[in-house]
């Protein structure tokens, strides 16, 4: 008879409980507060802050709770911090944007909190059931958030596309998961790893791996499962695009690492091969497609596809070094991507959308600070020192070379060179174009704060990355890497 769960399990789930209670509190506060009050955003930020604080007691724990359904370890902790920070920045970005778009903030903030909850469950889940429910909670929240601007047809179209393709890919993922369960007799990843450890290579298991890889590749928008990304990123409300490209991607990577590194170390050579092919195609197609985009949100969508390709290098390397490089890159990517989207949100005025490339022409005359911040984020995304993006790429490629994937590193470097073209084209528009046709960007205090944090992080992590490296290395070690050393 399986054991029940103990009171102590709830102690370890404190951050999730705080977040859930906070989300429900936001829903109630929406009814109680007067219409148009900005207090709701600050309550949401407070909830996220409280969740962040409640992570503190678990800074050094490494346990499995609730009968081995959820792991509370440093690996999960690192991801939870990434999710919470990006959620806070998303909420800050949204305050004025929601007023311009005239949507009610209550349900919006509730869904942002629920998406964060789903991500946290995904990062901790070491059982297919937990991971799957976390994934669903996150995905359903995002489907709704994408279509939140109801009068906007683009937003509706994006939501429907995302929902249909998401549901379909989820089916594929579930096929894979059910095969894994059928072959191992358990949904727990650690039990699964030990069952598969002694077995000969089973073709059914290969099929399961292929299906799970396909399902997860959709979530990180890896080519050829990326078709939804540009349309969804363009149509969704801009802060949600930012959150989608950062939080949802990071959560999916956490789940990939859990499933493949912890659950399927015996199939390493198979999934490494698959991810290697995906990484090469994803980097190349993402960067080449981004070259011709004139809409900034679309361009950043393709750029984020390319970044998923870079991150896959870390999965392929599979060593603690590769995983820690991924963690470093994910955190850095969070700040530079959210920063770039903050500038786009600043451009949004009552009458101007401001996400076309031409809206940015001559920006440095109209708003030098915004232009400079954007310059910094573009350089960082392109991987130019002394920004943080360079450090992130440097570690990823180093991990690839040390694990013997020199070719992968070469493709990555070549792709970074290609990507500079479209990142710098925006810089040319901002600094060298004479006509200043676009809107006047304006900053609310919340937007200014987000921008300041993103700029500071992009610079500080680029110049003094040591602390982050140490933390990431420690976090990567807690992931069960025993059986997944490089071949």
């Amino acid at each position, binding site marked *: 008879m*399986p054991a029940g*769960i103990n009171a102590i399990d709830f102690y370890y789930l404190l951050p999730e409980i705080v977040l859930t209670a906070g*989300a429900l509190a936001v829903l109630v506060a929406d009814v109680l507060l007067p219409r148009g009050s900005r207090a709701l955003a600050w309550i949401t930020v407070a909830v996220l802050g409280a969740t962040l604080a409640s992570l503190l007691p678990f800074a050094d724990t490494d346990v499995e709770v609730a009968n081995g359904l*959820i792991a509370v370890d440093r690996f999960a902790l690192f991801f939870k911090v990434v999710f919470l920070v990006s959620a806070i920045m998303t909420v800050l970005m949204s305050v004025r944007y929601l007023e311009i778009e005239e949507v*009610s903030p209550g349900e919006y903030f509730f869904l942002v909190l629920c998406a964060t909850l789903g991500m946290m469950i995904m990062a901790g889940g070491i*059982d297919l059931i937990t991971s799957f429910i976390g994934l669903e909670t996150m995905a359903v929240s995002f489907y709704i958030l994408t279509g*939140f601007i109801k009068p906007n047809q683009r937003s509706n179209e994006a939501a429907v596309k995302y929902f249909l393709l998401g549901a379909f890919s989820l089916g594929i993922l579930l096929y894979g998961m059910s095969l894994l369960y059928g072959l191992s007799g358990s949904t727990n990843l650690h039990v699964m790893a030990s069952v598969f450890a002694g077995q000969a290579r089973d*073709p059914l298991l290969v099929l399961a791996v292929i299906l799970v890889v396909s399902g997860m590749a959709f979530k990180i928008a890896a080519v050829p499962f990326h078709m939804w990304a540009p349309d969804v990123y363009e149509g969704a409300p801009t802060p949600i695009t930012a959150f989608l490209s950062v939080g949802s991607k990071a959560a999916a990577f956490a789940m990939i690492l859990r499933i493949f590194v912890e659950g399927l170390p015996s199939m390493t050579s198979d999934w490494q091969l698959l991810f290697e092919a995906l990484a090469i195609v994803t980097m190349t197609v993402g960067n080449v497609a981004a070259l011709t985009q004139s809409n900034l949100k679309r361009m950043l969508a393709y750029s984020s596809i390319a970044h998923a390709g870079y991150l896959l290098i870390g999965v392929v390397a599979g060593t603690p070094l590769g995983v820690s490089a991924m963690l470093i890159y994910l955190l850095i990517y969070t700040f530079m991507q959210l920063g770039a989207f903050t500038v786009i949100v600043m451009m949004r005025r009552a009458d101007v959308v401001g996400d076309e490339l031409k809206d940015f022409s001559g920006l440095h005359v109209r708003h030098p600070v915004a232009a400079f911040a954007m310059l910094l984020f573009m350089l960082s995304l392109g991987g130019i020192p002394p920004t943080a993006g360079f450090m992130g790429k440097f570690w990823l490629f180093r991990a690839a070379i040390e694990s013997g994937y020199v070719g992968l590193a070469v493709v990555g470097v070549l792709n970074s060179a290609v990507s500079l073209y479209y990142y710098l084209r925006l810089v040319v528009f901002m600094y060298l174009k004479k006509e200043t046709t676009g809107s006047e960007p304006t900053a609310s205090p919340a937007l200014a704060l987000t921008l300041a944090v993103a700029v500071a992080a992009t610079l500080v992590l680029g110049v003094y990355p040591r602390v982050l490296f140490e933390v990431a290395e420690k976090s990567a070690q807690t992931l069960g890497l025993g059986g997944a050393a490089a071949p």
Partner: protein
Amino acid sequence: MGEAIAFYIIAGFILIFAVLVVTAKEAVHSVVFLVIDFLFVAALYASLGAEFLAIIQILVYAGGIVVLYLFVVMLVNLKRPPEAYADPHRRTTLGFALSAAMLLEIGVIASYGYVKPAPALAAVAAPVTGNTEEVGWLLYTSYLIPFEIASMLLLVAMIGAIVLAKREL
């Protein structure tokens, strides 16, 4: 032996009705065939001793979801001929070729698994008593946490439906 015969008969009916769902000209006929298909799947579950799944299958799929389908069929105008929906970008041949290749691949893998069964398939002892109690017991003990998260998931879906369907917020 009897079990195997029952399985193949039920499986055969599932396939026949699945094909009928796709080929039926009238949308309402499709839905009716789908209900029959779901009932046969429920019978399959019952014959495997999973009576809880069988009941859920009838309540949720044959009951709830099909009612939803019928609403859609009633509300959406499906009277136009299929040609009106034709997409010039559709590559039917390529689609068929790819799915045929995929089917072949899965078939090969499945037949390999049949010839050489997987070594250590966890033999689950069939519960002597009904498994409804078993499922309920597991759900509220071992799997309490995912169960609780699922309640949040449902709340999200509910609020999402209200947000998207309401005219003015």
